[in-house]
């Protein structure tokens, strides 16, 4: 009987397939720069053309100006974002886009070099098609003394150390990046938005609680008796620095600079030097021409990146704007922002990190939502991530001079979980986070409260690098509706619940929950 069914099923399906008229993929692309919407049907031909170009040029810089086609520069682009539109100068140098699997939803691009024009590249990222998720690896863990907040404003790195300013104890915790050993230095004052000089001098902004001048200070951290004491300071404009973006200050050639405009704020202390010169001779500073980042360029103008960022409609507006670009050691820069919906308390989600490569291209990666990782500092010594856990702060690093890698993620993961409107919204700031079992029971109760039947699919799935599928079996044999966990498929072993995009996801010790 089964064979007969199978035969007939095949016949029915084949007959239906034969009856389908296969549409052509679409009309030529007409994607306008500056728009955030698109018609997928018009996009595929461009992608095919792009793929063909990619195959031809194979990621190698095409320097033959006479052979470089203008269409390369105008049609390449990721599917869910816009494409670059660059003017093709009489003398054109076209750089192939990066096609690595590690770059996620990225990049685009086309670079055009005229005699005096900067290279312009769009750098696209969208919450509708998030880039690949980067999985930070904890490099070292430091016990925290008291409550911490605003990690990015209190952490800085140089080539050898990471510093964390603990406001509760008025101490700077200096961590050796080689072995994780820590030393604590009691500070005269507690700066924020800190920068760590090459000789472990702590620079940062001091904002008196009771008024008074706002100052940039320099505090040596391993200089004998001078350690912890302010060695130099200078007042700064209150109007400019009272409200400021994260990571506004950086290491310049001669001292601490405002990364947004290159202003030298405080010269290095005697004996302190700037970071080593870049191999390409470029300066360490990038200018963000518009404070709502739409454009980054090197100060001396050879490159210009145009980030095109499509955020969730529910994304909170950042009061102080995005952090300015941070220079990276390869001659490029790093930028980061948030594209996900905001939590109830206004906390942004979906942090994405863009690497602006020195050849004018770029790529994006994404921090895994719900794990607490965020960019703590970025600069010529790499990008440091940090998160707080119970009783400690964990650090991870994205190596400098290369885009971070991540596993290939099939398809774009969805904005919401498969459970859709049955998903349970739980704020991320629920503390303490309850045991996984409590969340499972909560989910079961919520499912039962839905006006539904057992025909409704009852599977929760994430399609990111930490795919976890939880299947609830539905039983209405007793008259009511009851849900029970019948299967959990996971790719890892987890121990705490997490919230992703305001939807409940579960990280669980798979073995325990399957029993």
């Amino acid at each position, binding site marked *: 009987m*089964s064979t*007969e*069914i*199978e*035969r*007939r*099923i*095949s016949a*029915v*399906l*084949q007959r*239906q*397939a034969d*009856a*389908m*008229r*296969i*549409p052509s*993929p*679409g009309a030529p692309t007409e994607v306008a720069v500056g728009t955030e919407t698109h018609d*997928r*049907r018009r*996009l*595929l031909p461009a*992608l*095919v053309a*792009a*793929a*063909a170009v*990619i*195959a031809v040029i194979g990621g190698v810089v095409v320097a033959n100006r006479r052979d470089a086609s203008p269409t390369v520069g105008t049609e390449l682009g*990721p*599917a*869910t974002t816009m494409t670059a539109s660059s003017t093709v100068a009489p003398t054109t140098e076209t750089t192939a886009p990066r*096609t*690595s*699997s*590690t770059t*996620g*939803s*990225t990049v685009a691009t086309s670079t055009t070099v005229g005699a005096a024009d900067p290279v312009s590249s769009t750098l696209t990222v969208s919450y509708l098609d998030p880039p690949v998720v980067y999985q930070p690896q904890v490099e070292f863990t430091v016990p925290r003394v008291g409550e911490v907040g605003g990690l990015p404003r209190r952490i800085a790195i140089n080539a050898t150390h990471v510093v964390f300013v603990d406001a509760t104890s008025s101490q700077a915790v200096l961590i050796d990046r080689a072995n994780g050993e820590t030393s604590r230095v009691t500070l005269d004052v507690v700066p924020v938005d800190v920068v760590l000089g090459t000789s472990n001098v702590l620079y940062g902004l001091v904002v008196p609680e009771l008024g008074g001048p706002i100052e940039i200070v320099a505090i040596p951290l391993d200089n004998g008796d001078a350690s912890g004491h302010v060695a130099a300071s200078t007042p700064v404009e209150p109007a400019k620095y009272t409200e400021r973006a994260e990571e506004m200050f950086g290491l310049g050639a001669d001292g601490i600079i405002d990364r947004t405009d290159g202003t030298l704020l405080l010269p290095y202390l005697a004996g302190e030097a700037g970071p080593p010169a870049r191999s390409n001779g470029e300066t360490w500073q990038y200018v963000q021409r518009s404070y709502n980042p739409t454009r980054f360029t090197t100060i001396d103008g050879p490159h210009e990146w145009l980030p095109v960022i499509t955020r969730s409609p529910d994304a909170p507006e950042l009061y102080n704007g995005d952090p300015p670009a941070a220079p990276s050691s390869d001659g490029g820069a790093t930028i980061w922002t948030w594209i996900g919906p905001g939590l109830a308390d206004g906390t942004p989600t979906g942090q994405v990190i863009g690497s602006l490569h020195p050849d004018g291209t770029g790529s994006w990666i994404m921090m895994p939502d719900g794990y607490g990782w965020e960019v703590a500092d970025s600069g010529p010594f790499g990008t440091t991530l940090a998160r707080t856990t119970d009783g400690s702060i964990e650090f991870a690093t994205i190596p400098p001079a290369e885009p971070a890698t991540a596993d*290939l993620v*099939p*398809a*774009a993961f*969805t904005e*919401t979980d*498969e459970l*859709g*409107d049955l998903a349970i919204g739980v704020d991320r700031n629920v503390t303490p986070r309850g045991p996984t079992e409590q969340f499972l029971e909560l989910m079961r109760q919520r499912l039962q409260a839905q006006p*539904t039947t057992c*025909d*409704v*699919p009852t599977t929760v*799935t994430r*399609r990111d690098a930490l*795919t976890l*599928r939880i299947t609830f079996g539905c039983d209405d044999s007793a008259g009511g509706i009851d849900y029970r966990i019948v*299967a959990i*498929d996971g790719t890892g072993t987890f121990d705490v619940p997490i919230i992703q995009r305001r939807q409940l996801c579960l990280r669980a010790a798979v073995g325990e929950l399957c029993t």
Partner: protein
Amino acid sequence: VGVRTNLGGERADGSFEEFFTSAWPWAYRLAVFLTHDSSAAEDLAQEALASMSRQWGAAERPEAYLRRSVVNLCWNWHRHRRVVARRLPLAVSDDGYDAGFDELADALAALPYRQRAVVVLRYYGGLSEAEIAAALGCRPGTVKSLASRALATLAEELPR
């Protein structure tokens, strides 16, 4: 049972353009089977291929990657349309696709999504249980279970 070439053979060579040419028809057909909406199917198949184009060369088995993308995107489409499972009407679109109205076709269309995906991938695509499991993101044992339930349902609808 099933014709393996229906749902994509091995990648012809390293060119996405060639892969696209060969994959487009079956990606579209698969999406039609899973959505019963030819317009949506066109969009979703294109979206899956667009996603692949950005990461071309990364997937070791692009045809498997594409199958999973189409299956996932079609599922998302159902969720976003708030289609609640049962009794999806069989599509009769305006572009000439007439799925017919025999009882078995109706029963196929009415299967829950994952069961329908298993049946299409198995009996139209000719895929193995392992390949279907990869496309659905589940275990082979789940595929067996889904197939068994689907066949049991369809058997009841089979004209005797």
